[in-house]
């Protein structure tokens, strides 16, 4: 389907709708080095329907000239999959943490303000260092040990359809960090691991093989920076682009840790 055809088909009466903008106005918070001061720059690219923020940034990179006419260093940002599964392009779009690739320009108010994902250290422009996510996933043992005292040729353990459906929700996490950016308890000031690693504990603890390390994971989230540091503000579940039921995971882990503490106390 050609673009002309689609535009003609979806366009309202010229008198009824507002005029199609002739440009896309981007207001980007830039930062040259991790320690340098951030500053704002305004850019405009020609309007095209169906742009998303990543594709708009790609167009901008070809000709990085500000609205004031100054040619500047191209904007640095991260991207990979372009289909909201890798999580690398998460940033603040008009003040909201979300993946840039699924932020459709036609649905955004202009100028579109782009800022690096908060709470994580800025590397450059819109690139942040999310290695804290890796460290916290390791801290809560968000992995499954596949080596063990069982026959590796045995068929995989069975999981009921209902259990599988519930677990699947958590398996969609792409470590984008939006939930942590929105969490009022997470940040450089605190050692809270944040919602996403907790949800992975919920997932791994339910896994037929992963459940063997359940107690280790629960003990990990019962320590500093663990589950107790959650303040139940529940912003995480509102901003998660994959609609992961983070607050349900936190409630279920509350239950698991309550029982685990009783086991630890009473044997």
């Amino acid at each position, binding site marked *: 389907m050609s673009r002309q055809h689609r535009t003609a088909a979806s366009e309202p009466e010229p008198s009824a709708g507002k005029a199609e903008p002739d440009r896309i106005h981007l207001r980007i918070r830039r930062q040259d080095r991790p320690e340098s001061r951030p500053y704002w720059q305004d850019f405009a690219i020609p309007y095209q329907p169906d742009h998303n923020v990543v594709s708009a940034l790609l167009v901008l990179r070809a000709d990085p000239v500000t609205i004031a006419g100054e040619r500047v260093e191209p904007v640095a940002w991260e991207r990979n999959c372009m289909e909201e599964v890798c999580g690398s392009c998460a940033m603040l779009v008009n003040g909201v943490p979300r993946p840039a690739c699924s932020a459709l320009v036609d649905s955004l108010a202009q100028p579109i303000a782009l800022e690096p994902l908060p709470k994580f250290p800025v590397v450059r422009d819109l690139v942040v260092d999310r290695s804290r996510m890796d460290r916290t996933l390791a801290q809560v043992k968000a992995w499954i040990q596949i080596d063990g005292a069982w026959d590796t040729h045995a068929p995989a353990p069975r999981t009921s359809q209902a259990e599988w459906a519930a677990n699947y929700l958590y398996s969609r996490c792409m470590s984008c960090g939006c939930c942590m950016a929105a969490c*009022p*308890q997470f*940040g450089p000031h605190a050692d809270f691991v944040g919602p996403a690693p907790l949800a992975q504990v919920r997932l791994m603890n339910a896994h037929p093989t992963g459940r063997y390390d359940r*107690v280790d994971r629960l003990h990990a989230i019962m*320590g500093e920076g663990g589950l107790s540091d959650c303040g139940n503000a529940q912003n995480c579940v*509102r901003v998660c682009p994959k609609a992961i039921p983070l607050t349900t995971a*936190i409630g279920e882990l509350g239950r698991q840790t*309550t029982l685990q*503490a009783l086991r630890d106390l009473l044997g």
Partner: protein
Amino acid sequence: MTASIENSHFLLRRLHSLLGLVPVGAFLVFHLWENSQSRFGAAHYNGEVVAFLQGMNYLTVIELLVIALPLAFHAGYGLLILPQMRLEPRRYPYARNWLYGLQRVSGVGILLFLLVHVGTTRIQGLWQPAIRADLYGHMQALLSEPWMLGLYAAGLLLSVFHLANGLATMGIVWGLTASVQAQRIFGYGCLTFGLVLAAIGIQGLLGFLP
């Protein structure tokens, strides 16, 4: 393995949570119900309600162990974790985010109110026997000042909010409510509880007015 016991982080935080409900929250419910009897007048309030409490065996020990110490721990630990908050209510204007912030702000407000409240009643009564002999009259004199009545109403409503909202989040913390629906239903239950308790408390305040 007993890793969660060797590391006190979890147990302290859960103790803070538990003490907020029992005994501190339970005492608030009792206290507001008890004082709602102010509407029966000075003779009943001084002669029945206060006299019964003052005549209790081991009263000072109970006051210290069941009220003062748990409250001090709950408040102290609350102040300790308060600086973790990085509230952004404009960016995330969701109800639960507001409640999260209000829970912490109300905690500080309650603490300031309690300094005034306990100071001008129980503590002052230690060296002014007249206060203990006619608590009703003392409260009437206090609450006749409009600003003091406002302060009491604010302290009362903050306390009731803190208990009701704390109860709702306790459901998640302890794992009673996990699903969104369960959390919502329990949340409305806590809201109803809070409204009833606030009504009882306000009635008690008004009962002291001449």
